[in-house]
């Protein structure tokens, strides 16, 4: 059965946060209403508006489905989205 318009409006995009970003946002994930979010750039813009989001910029690293993603990549509610602070392995 297709979702009703009301249900589709309440769908959310879940975004995982790590390390310093999880501390700044006070959580290891945030849920964003999916309405109006079409791309990785849209996700970053929404995050920037949240408390703790000042650190998010257009060059912030984003992974979609375990791969680094460019700002123009389309996203939807089924994608696994993660915001990556500057990497520091090794």
């Amino acid at each position: 059965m297709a979702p009703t318009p009301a249900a589709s409006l309440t769908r959310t995009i879940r975004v995982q946060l790590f390390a310093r970003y999880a501390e700044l946002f006070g959580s290891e994930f945030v849920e964003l209403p999916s309405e109006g979010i079409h791309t990785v750039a849209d996700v970053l813009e929404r995050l920037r508006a949240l408390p703790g989001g000042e650190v998010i910029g257009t060059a912030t690293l984003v992974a979609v489905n375990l791969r680094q993603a460019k700002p123009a990549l389309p996203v939807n509610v089924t994608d696994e989205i993660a915001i990556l602070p500057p990497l520091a392995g090794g």
Partner: protein
Amino acid sequence: MAFLSQAALELDELIAAVSGPGRGAVVTFLGTVRDHHEGRGVSALGYSAYEPMAESVCAEIVAEAERKWPVKVALKHRLGDLAIGDSAVAIAVAGDHRDEAFAACRYAIEELKRRVPIWKRERLADGSVEWVGAEAPGSRPQAAGNTP
């Protein structure tokens, strides 16, 4: 092989995993926790990761190195709390000859540092705690894959 480990890294295990009768050159790299960073004393480190992605990217890096050179590559990265001198990353590469083994080992560590989602939090000698890796607006170290 899991590429991330909460347990101490054993370089011998990685060497055994890549060695073979035809491989006359084994190159290893061990990254250890040092007691200073940018002029300040460090007393301990903690590593965390986006684990599913880190495992996936490590597998890609190993496959890439083994495609580029006729070698076998093993690598592991430690997670959790580490003390000064502990091994944080271990890589072993075996090939018929040293040139390809050195090149592949260098490739593996450089790509790991550039692409694998792992983060490091330092406990400094003065008791403060800091995430390593300055925010650099406008910089984009890597944007591979998922290109629209």
